[in-house]
């Protein structure tokens, strides 16, 4: 194979970039899923929505950043409607019904996308400042991908701070463990869960907007990405931020270097990884305590 170190450096950056995208995508899911024990299969669809909004907003205003800002907001609003209209009702309904309802939502979203944005894949360009390539320590790499890496890192840090260091984090976890008792301590569980859900959705939307200059948006993109995100979340261990981070890196690098080193089995790799991890760590690598 190639011996030139810069080649491996680039591949490492590729792995990093993919990991960060996966992180942005899955962290919302893990927060909702692990903390609310709410199985939101529609998360992928929300990512798709983010992507489409990103494109349309960029097209309308001619600025990528309009999409970057609009996507999380619009998706969060959508999430709000979903929560008030559906999820709230479903919170007590048990995981199975949640799976079903959110599966139903996927179906609806896919067709809504088709109706609004058509069957064809569409895309948008990276923002001017981040287009082209930059030179990091002698390694030439697409600037936009570097931006993704940075963004992922920032979101990571921010969330870590909130969840572990703040009262809010503790309140969320308490509400998850036992909402009745949390209420008895004066915690307005409903409201907190509502906030968490919306934040999770916003992150999905952000991921969509960020991904779209690299990938294209098409009606099934949400369904396609769903599995990888679930794998990330589960491999990492649900509900724990560390889990989402670990999961993203494992899957991201497994996919990247799998593609390079063992292309024959590349597509098997992440599933093997998933199965392997679960067999030896039945609750993922870093499960939230308890």
């Amino acid at each position, binding site marked *: 194979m*190639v011996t*030139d170190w810069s*080649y491996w450096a*680039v*591949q490492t950056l*590729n*792995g990093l*970039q*993919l990991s960060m*995208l996966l992180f942005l995508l899955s962290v919302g899911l893990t927060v909702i899923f692990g903390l609310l024990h709410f199985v939101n299969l529609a998360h992928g669809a929300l990512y798709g929505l983010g992507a489409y909004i990103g494109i349309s907003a960029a097209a309308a205003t001619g600025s990528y950043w309009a999409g970057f800002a609009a996507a999380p907001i619009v998706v969060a609003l959508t999430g709000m409607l979903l929560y008030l209209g559906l999820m709230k009702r479903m919170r007590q309904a048990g995981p199975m019904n949640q799976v079903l309802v959110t599966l139903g939502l996927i179906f609806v979203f896919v067709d809504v996308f*088709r109706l609004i944005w*058509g*069957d*064809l*894949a*569409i*895309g*948008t*360009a*990276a923002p001017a400042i981040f287009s082209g*390539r930059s030179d990091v320590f002698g390694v*030439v790499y*697409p600037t*936009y*991908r570097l931006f993704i890496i940075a963004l992922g890192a920032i979101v990571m840090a921010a969330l870590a701070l909130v969840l572990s260091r703040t009262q809010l984090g503790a309140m969320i976890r308490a509400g998850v463990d036992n909402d009745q008792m949390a209420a008895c301590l004066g915690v307005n569980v409903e409201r907190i869960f509502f906030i968490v859900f919306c934040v999770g959705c916003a992150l999905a939307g952000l991921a969509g907007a960020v991904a779209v*200059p*690299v*990938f*294209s948006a*098409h009606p*099934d*993109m949400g369904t*396609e*990405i769903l599995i990888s995100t679930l794998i990330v979340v589960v491999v990492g261990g649900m509900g724990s931020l560390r889990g989402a981070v670990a999961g993203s890196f494992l899957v991201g690098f497994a*996919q*990247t*270097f799998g*593609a*390079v080193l063992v*292309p024959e089995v*590349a*597509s098997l790799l992440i599933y093997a990884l998933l199965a392997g991890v679960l067999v030896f760590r039945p609750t993922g690598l870093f499960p939230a305590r308890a």
Partner: protein
Amino acid sequence: QDYKVGMLLPYSGVYAALGKDIDEGFVLALEEAGMADQVEIIREDTEVKPPVGLAKARKLVLEDQVDVLVGPVSSGVLGAVRDFVDQTKTPIIVANAGNDEATGENCTPYIVRVSFSNSQVNRPMGQWMYDQGIRKVYTMAPDYAAGRQQIGAFAEAFKAAGGEIVGQEFTPFRTTQDFGPYLSAAQATEPDAVYVFYAGSEAINFVKQYDAFGLNDTATLHGSGFINSPLYVDAQGPAAVGTVASLHYIPTLDTPENKTFVEAVQKRYERTPSEYTVQGYDAGRSFVEAIKSGATDKEAIAKALPTVEYVSPRGPVSIDPATNNIVQNMYIYETVEGDDGKLTQKLIGTVENVKDPVNGCEM
């Protein structure tokens, strides 16, 4: 109404847009011939799933008693219905699916293909690229039958011409979104050109990322024409400029037949035709020709279809009786920015009357 046509196309799923274009092209051909009200069209959605496609084909033939099937887009579906149409002696006019076997070892008198065969589209590029002085080529395609055939045909021809394939990668079909790792690998082999087959959203992702990684500066992107089909070339944006590809049709062909066709499509559907629109049109046109030649029932239509010959928007076309695959020109074009700033196709080479070898077909 004297005839029943069963449209076996994806109206949902990844190829829904392709199905739509083919359908429109077909309808246009009927209207042009003023036969729209003689023909009843029954549409069934294959969902791009072979089992579904087969079930729908069964329904169209056994329940609706159609005289002829039109479609499918996916090679998988065509493979699935092959035995069935053969047994029930139902002619099927293939309007996209490109798998070589359908007009090769698995051919039957009842499969007539007016679209293309996977290798037909790519074979000519081998010699042509060599003639342009390209010597070292790296190839990529999705890892499924169509992908392997399209690349296989090119690689064979290119090597035959004296070129060298410095690397070959088949990426997991429909699960690959980030081509970064593969592109870096390709870059490392320092090829004169990269030759690919990608379609749909994969094509968009690939072209954009190819450009982002700066390969355009070192190695021109070549490929099977689906790579920047007018359907989605806009989504690829500037990244697509400079790509060189071969296909059986481009909307910018400067022939009277094409001009009228493009106008007709513009008028009827308010957009420029894609290769799929033409495939649909020629499916309709060949059906019309078959009828005109006096065919009435399934058997007769099946007999008549291979004999049709006319000048299509894509140039002179005929059916090779040995394989029932279409004989047609291949157009090598470059994607360029037009005067209106929109991307368009600039014809830079034509390979005439490309005809597949019989490869194992016995009628």
